[in-house]
């Protein structure tokens, strides 16, 4: 213990406050957003018109060098670390900037290409992605595979310098209007489960590709089914080696990716808007609403703090694996509860699709979307299995 008595000054290393340069960085972003965020909300990117408006916004972001902030500088990014990224996101939501139509590319395919792509692939795809010229959809799921991703049946048969692709993908987000899709295909017809899969990029305007939009609860095609009928794809569109698909798909499915897609700022901003909605209407509301909004606000903040904690761990070199299942369940339940409360507050207006008073229309849209939270990206039941088996070490069977 003597050591400790001597070295007490070094003990205080956990530091729960931003540095000067982090605060400066925040100002810089805030300034840029204040000048560049469209004054009027864009149409939904699940409509043709809105999709193109959002593509334009990606281009604007890129002009300010704000579109791929986590990418290394050599690919045109800013190489932000996770804490900086969190700051960026806080300012993004504070500015009420448009949603990212480019998510699949920037956060999923981009990092994959950087790790596994050839130089040619990188130079062909990365800048087109950053500039918004290629908007990507993801093609993981297949009908009847559900949460069981290894049950992939779509095939890619090698024929010299091309692959011939057949089969069907579903729940492909953004595919209704996107330019390209990436996904896993079975390149070894004899293989089973995780083996024999390859990671292939497919242009959606290729002959033989049919995209059938799937309207979701809000009536808009947030997803699509993609049918491949003898689609010919150049072999240079394969990432990594034949049969390496599963490994590549899994390699980048960690904490950082989850974070990029669901930054805490989103839920904190919803919680704040909810509090305002509550205080604007509190005279006619019952005690349960008061307590529920308070609880949600606290949960949103607890979520943010937890993410800062996880980010600190990652920056210190730790791996965050199954822990992201804890966050998944937490944010998806919180998001649903917040929108449910908004519906309760809106009461007679909660069915009015085009009502602007109290932001009713946008709460309704968010309410419907919140139902998908506990389902997509691994249902909450699967997440709880992971938590109990991998984090708590409980027996599988």
């Amino acid at each position, binding site marked *: 213990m003597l050591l400790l008595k001597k070295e007490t000054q070094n003990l205080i290393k956990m530091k729960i406050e931003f540095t000067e340069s982090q605060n400066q960085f925040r100002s810089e972003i805030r300034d840029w957003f204040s000048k560049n965020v469209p004054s009027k909300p864009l149409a939904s990117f699940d409509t043709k018109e809105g999709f193109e408006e959002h593509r334009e916004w990606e281009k604007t972001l890129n002009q300010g060098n704000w579109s791929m902030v986590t990418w290394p500088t050599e690919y045109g990014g800013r190489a932000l670390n996770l804490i900086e990224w969190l700051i960026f996101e806080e300012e993004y939501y504070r500015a009420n900037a448009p949603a990212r139509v480019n998510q699949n590319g920037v956060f999923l395919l981009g990092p994959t290409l950087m790790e596994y792509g050839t130089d040619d692939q990188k130079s062909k795809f990365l800048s087109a992605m950053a500039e918004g010229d290629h908007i990507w959809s993801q093609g993981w799921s297949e009908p009847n595979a559900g949460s069981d991703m290894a049950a992939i049946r779509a095939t890619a048969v090698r024929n010299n310098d091309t692959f011939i692709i057949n089969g069907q993908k579903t729940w492909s987000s953004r595919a209704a209007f996107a330019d390209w899709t990436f996904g896993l295909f079975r390149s070894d017809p004899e293989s089973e489960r995780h083996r024999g899969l390859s990671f292939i990029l497919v242009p959606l305007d290729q002959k033989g590709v049919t995209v059938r939009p799937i309207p979701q*609860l809000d009536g808009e095609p947030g997803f699509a089914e993609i049918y491949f009928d003898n689609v010919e794809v150049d072999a240079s569109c394969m990432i990594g080696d034949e049969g390496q698909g599963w490994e590549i798909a899994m390699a980048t499915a960690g904490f950082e990716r989850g974070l990029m897609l669901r930054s805490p700022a989103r839920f904190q901003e919803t919680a704040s808007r909810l509090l305002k909605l509550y205080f604007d209407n509190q005279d006619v509301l019952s005690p349960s*609403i008061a307590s529920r909004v308070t609880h949600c606000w606290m949960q949103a903040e607890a979520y943010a703090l937890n993410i800062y904690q996880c980010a600190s761990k990652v920056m210190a070199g730790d791996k965050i694996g199954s822990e992201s299942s804890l966050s998944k369940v937490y944010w998806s339940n919180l998001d649903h509860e917040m929108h449910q409360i908004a519906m309760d507050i809106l*009461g*007679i207006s*909660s069915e009015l699709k085009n009502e602007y008073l109290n932001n009713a229309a946008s709460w309704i849209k968010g309410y419907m979307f919140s139902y998908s939270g*506990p389902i*997509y990206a691994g249902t909450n039941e699967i997440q709880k299995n992971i938590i109990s088996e991998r984090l708590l070490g409980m027996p599988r069977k």
Partner: protein
Amino acid sequence: MNFNFSDDQALFSESLQKYLSDNVTTKSIREFWTDNSHFLSSRWKELEELGFITANIDESNGGMSLDLITIALLVEKIGYSGMPEPIAEQLFLANPLINEFSSQINHNEYLAVAHDLAPHPNFLEDSKQLIFFQDQNPYLIDIEKLKIRSLESNDPSRSIYDFEANNLDDATKLESKKNLYEQVQNYGMVMSSALLLGLSKRIIDSAKLYTCDREQFGKPIGSFQAVKHMLADVAIEIEFTNALVYRAASSIQKNCSNATMHAAQAKFQSIKACEIASKNGLQAHGAMGYTWEMDLHIFIRKGWSYKGIWGSRPFVENLVFNNLKKDLPKLGATYTFMDNND
């Protein structure tokens, strides 16, 4: 004390249920959306001929004078079917008003009703007259005297409207010894409770079918304990809604002083049941349930509307909370069926 439906009540509701399952298919509901066809007048006529539409109109006016418990049972079946036409509204809101003001109302037509708790009458354009409240006073007005504007509900089965009277003189003030504003409020709360109860039952039935059928990891997803318990939780909330709804109907029927309290309790619990049915039912369907193509959302969507109108959760919770404060001495187990006026 007897909570059982009579054979006649059961028979009557079963025959409605039979009619609905034969005629109100999800396909026909979807056609309704695309055609924007409003009322299926042929269906309305059929149900009228079968005696359902006028079931609780006084016998003197050609109805059957049925009691509100039976009517609530019918409305539960209507909820289960997802039917777009406003039969629930006719039975619960219009008919009692027709009985009271039969001389002033054209009772061969659908009568729309507006109230602060549901200010956008369903199918207003398909009615000849409207009863509305101004400062809690009831007025009757012909539709052609109104400026009406169609609104878009999140449930495409509901044709709802905003309206404005050019001149209050165009309307007839209805004189009544009862507090009609509160009466209609209570009727609306119980009507929406019965609808939500029926919708919840439909949602759990769909989820049950889907999870027994759909396989994952080599067995039906309904065999996973998490999915089972998810639906068990729904079954529990539904079970404890039934009696509340029928007690509320009975209390209104008897003009019991606790009718408002009982109606609010029924509404609170039916909102809760429908909410957990929607959340867990959709969750049990996985991503499929989230699509427009699956029929599930027809019923979930209708639940969303009736949760908000005719007594939202904050509204009914406040009613109950304030009454508890007032009635503190009369809250024990011996007061469940008491009329506080007794």
